[in-house]
């Protein structure tokens, strides 16, 4: 009991510190750091959607970037071609990505394990092919450019990185809370029940298919949210953002940080995205170093950084108890 209390105090302590650091970031760091954190936030949302499915259902998806991209493409097309005013393109974008998840969900809810992976791979590639081949709508490989982030309360988030940072931060924290709440809710408990023993849950009278279906749509929703910020921040979208490379990068970020937890997803994304930029400035062989790092993680911390740290803490506590 005492142990748990002290753990909670630590959690609250870290929570307060990280929140205050995040809230004051633009004032004590450079624009460059703010940019990196923004990137970590939108890619983090993508990784979280993958980690949610992996952690709660044991589903490893290779198509979360598709929802990320669908939302992004809708924002880009509606804004550049039809000049719709601000809240409409992202709202439609997220709605369409969710609808797409509802459609694809019908196909994937019956599968598990490697079959789920394969099916999401196929569907993800389908979206990629559409993005690259349907040139009259998506502009093919050239992609869509000149997407500008909106004006909010009279401040242009396209010009002010600080404004964009807070805009993104609100939704980033929002998605963490959303997914964390889902995990804690009876719904999350049911999902974990399915993950551990599907037949038992079925026998207890739960609608396994429906629960999975909902989880899939919720995850897609978070990915779509990330996609909106991606397209607003980079100002462009092209088929690469829905490609297998992006999906695999997301999976790698998840594995690195710990695919079963939201914190791991964010940490993994952070490390990966920062190393990518920082190491590549130092050496041209940076991919080699990243490969070695992955190998070490898989060998010595197969649960990812956060997963392994948790495990260590638990064994330590057991020993002291």
């Amino acid at each position, binding site marked *: 009991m005492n142990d748990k209390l002290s753990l909670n105090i630590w959690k609250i302590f870290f929570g307060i510190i990280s929140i205050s650091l995040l809230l004051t970031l633009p004032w004590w760091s450079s624009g460059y750091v703010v*940019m990196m954190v923004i990137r970590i936030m939108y890619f983090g949302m993508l990784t979280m959607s993958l980690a949610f499915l992996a952690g709660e259902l044991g589903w490893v998806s290779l198509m979360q970037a598709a929802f990320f991209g669908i939302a992004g493409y809708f924002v880009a097309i509606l804004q550049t071609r039809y000049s719709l005013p601000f809240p409409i393109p992202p709202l439609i974008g997220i709605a369409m990505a969710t609808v797409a998840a509802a459609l694809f969900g019908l196909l994937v809810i019956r599968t598990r394990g490697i079959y789920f992976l394969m099916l999401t791979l196929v569907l993800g590639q389908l979206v990629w092919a559409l993005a690259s081949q349907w040139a009259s709508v998506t502009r093919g490989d050239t992609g869509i450019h000149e997407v500008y982030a909106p004006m909010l309360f009279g401040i242009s988030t396209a010009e002010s990185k600080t404004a964009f940072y807070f805009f993104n931060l609100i939704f980033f924290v929002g998605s963490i809370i959303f997914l964390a709440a889902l995990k804690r809710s009876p719904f999350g408990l049911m999902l974990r029940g399915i993950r551990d023993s599907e037949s038992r849950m079925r026998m207890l009278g739960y609608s396994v298919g429906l629960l999975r279906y909902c989880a899939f749509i919720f995850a897609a929703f978070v990915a779509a949210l990330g996609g909106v910020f991606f397209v607003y921040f980079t100002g462009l979208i092209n088929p690469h953002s829905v490609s297998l490379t992006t999906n695999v990068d997301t999976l790698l970020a998840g594995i690195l940080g710990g695919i079963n937890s939201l914190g791991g997803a964010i940490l993994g994304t952070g490390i990966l995205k920062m190393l990518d930029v920082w190491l590549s400035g130092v050496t041209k062989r940076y991919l080699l170093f990243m490969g070695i790092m992955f190998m070490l993680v898989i060998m010595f911390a197969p649960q990812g950084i956060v997963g392994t740290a948790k495990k260590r803490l638990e064994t330590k506590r057991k020993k002291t108890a």
Partner: protein
Amino acid sequence: MMSRKKIFTLVGVFALTMGWLSPVHAVDEIRIGHIGPTTGWATIFGQQVLNGIKLALAERDYKFRGIPIKLFTEDTKADVEVMRTKLDSLKNRDKVHLIIGPSLGHEGMAAVDWAARNPDVPILVGYSAPEDMTMRKATYSLIRPGWTGSQVIFHFGKFCAKDLGYKKVIIVGQDYSYPWDQAAGFIRGFLENGGEKVLRIWHPVEAVDFSSIMAKLMGLSKEYDAVLNNSGGAQVVAFFKQWYQFGLDKVYPQILGQANVPIVPMLAELGDLALGVYSSLHYYDGNPSPANQKFRESYKKAFGEYPSVIAVQGYDAMHVAFKAMEAIDGKVDDPKKFINAIRNVRMSAEESPRGPFYFDKYGNPVQNIYIKKVVKKNGNLMNIVVKTYKNVSQFGPYADMAEKYMAQPATTRNYPPGEKEAYFREIEKYFGKEYVENLKKNNGWVD
């Protein structure tokens, strides 16, 4: 304690005012950033540009009038999101005065978008070829000492129709935007100069088994005169091998290639299969000019292989930058002046391995386009020139109708139409009746 704070503030204010008042210092270091894919499938496109830059810098010992030049290089991994981040890194972290790159088509389009938002950093584009970078989306700070996909192939269409006398051609290519643009440029030159029909066959980008396409080509050989290969990399090698395996070389006169098909690295891969291939580009490796010979030999000495047009791009970009620096006495910290100076650079045949060029008002070179043929000389495969079209702009034959040209829709896998009647109906909408009638009267473009 308060007084110490005050002293600090005073000193700070004093230092700032002094900095403000003191005369502008000359630049003590010139920082140049290179951006392009230097890992992954597209490595060659980034790496050779980088090598070209290094070669040009080494010629001057990494110095400009005694001021040291520092080169920063960033990898895009062929991903535009990564590229954008690294452009920001070059600008904000490394504070570069000039960026050279990127090299791929989609990267180029994203770079224009970035340039429009960051007009205070001059960009000299590497190998990227989409025409819109210097047409519909052109932005003042971005100058391309390279080429557009269509620019180099308009006249190849004309050459095939007039000099080779073909009436109907099949284009087989990878299904994405660069080959679409190549096909579009070819169709314009071909149909407007007496060609009758162009059939486009698209295959998936990664396809390496062309047996069904070969069978189709065999069947079509009665109707069509020639085949143009419109792919890149491994797909070209696979296509050429199967071309001979299926005996199509006995049915069609010879194979034609899009601009990138017989470039130097490809010649090494293709070997004798490439013999006789016709194509067109703004550079040919067999150019006997002293500038090109010097460039080839010193590149070989530095990097152990002969350079291709990709390396020429980096080499020329750096020399354009040098000429601009001369014009502004090395004051590269004034981006406006620097950009203006770059736009006014004229390169002569003695300075560039490709021949003379200068920039049009959109920032794309007006340059010679060479129709080339692959031959074997002293045991080495190389491209020699068959015909030269001088001072071709990115608008090709439409140089005085630039606005009308840009009003046309973007090219897709089947736009513009490949049949003469439909094509003429289509261009009449944009270029007017008179233009089409003149074409018919003169049986093509008037030189």
